[in-house]
């Protein structure tokens, strides 16, 4: 079975939480609760805690609203992954989900645009989108990526992987400095 090896590797990579499945409202609440108590336990600084909490909310709500099923068969679950871990300098939030192929270019452009901006430019862009975009039925109106980049103060790490003619896999890693 080798569960010990798996445990050891989770220990060594400082995994706080690792989840694969459908992100529901209940799961979001539970993960936030777990994360809050873990950060309280290590007495993480208030400002860092808030950033992590904020970014985690955005990440999970992205999964909640935008994760697709792997195939056209709608009876499948909208499986996604979420993992939280840390090292000496950073906390990391990684997410993965299926996304319709047709939605890939727009998301890629959005992230690349966000990554090309410095802090002041990001803030300006945030104001612009806040003011101009209509509220979509999923609520986010594209502010999510800008907000995560702004709050983390780091570039967003991402990848798209071809899966089938229907979807791709979108992987995102956001890091937050402990300072």
């Amino acid at each position: 079975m080798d569960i010990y090896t798996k445990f050891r590797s989770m220990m060594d990579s400082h995994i706080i939480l690792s989840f694969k499945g459908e992100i529901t409202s209940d799961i979001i609440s539970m993960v936030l609760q777990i994360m809050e108590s873990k950060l309280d336990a290590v007495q993480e600084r208030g400002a860092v805690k808030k950033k992590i909490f904020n970014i985690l909310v955005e990440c999970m709500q992205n999964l909640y609203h935008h994760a697709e099923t792997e195939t056209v068969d709608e009876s499948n679950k909208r499986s996604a992954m979420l993992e939280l871990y840390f090292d000496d300098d950073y906390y990391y939030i990684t997410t993965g989900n299926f996304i319709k192929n047709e939605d890939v270019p727009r998301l890629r452009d959005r992230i690349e645009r966000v990554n090309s901006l410095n802090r002041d430019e990001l803030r300006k862009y945030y104001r612009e989108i806040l003011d101009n975009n209509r509220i979509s039925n999923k609520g986010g109106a594209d502010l999510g990526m800008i907000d995560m980049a702004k709050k983390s103060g780091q570039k967003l790490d991402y990848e798209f992987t071809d899966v089938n003619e229907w979807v791709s896999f979108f992987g995102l890693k956001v890091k937050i400095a402990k300072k």
Partner: protein
Amino acid sequence: MDNLVIEGTKQTPHIDFNASTGVLSISGRSIPENTFEFFNPVLQWLDEYAGIAGDETVINVSLEYFNTSSSKYILEIFKRLKGVLNDGKDVLVKWYYEEDDEEMMETGEDYEDVSGLPFEIIAIEE
């Protein structure tokens, strides 16, 4: 008109909007998945309030966290109040942030810029 009081939860803010005093307060967290469901009644109340508002309206905003889908609705609240201001009445936004939360302070400045309402941005000592 009736006042609007909504108890806060772990996901949604506490709302206490008083039509007769013109003091409106929103505090706590706003991170629901379905923001429309929460904010729609709030905006409807404000639409009615805009018609009967007195000379002075103060809105106290002291939010610990809010998600980006709430941020649009917060702007919508301010837009409703901009209407009241445009009617020649006084409106003031008091935006509170915990003193180590620079992000929340800047967000206040962003809203001040975008909404066109007068803001007081106030640090709360912890």
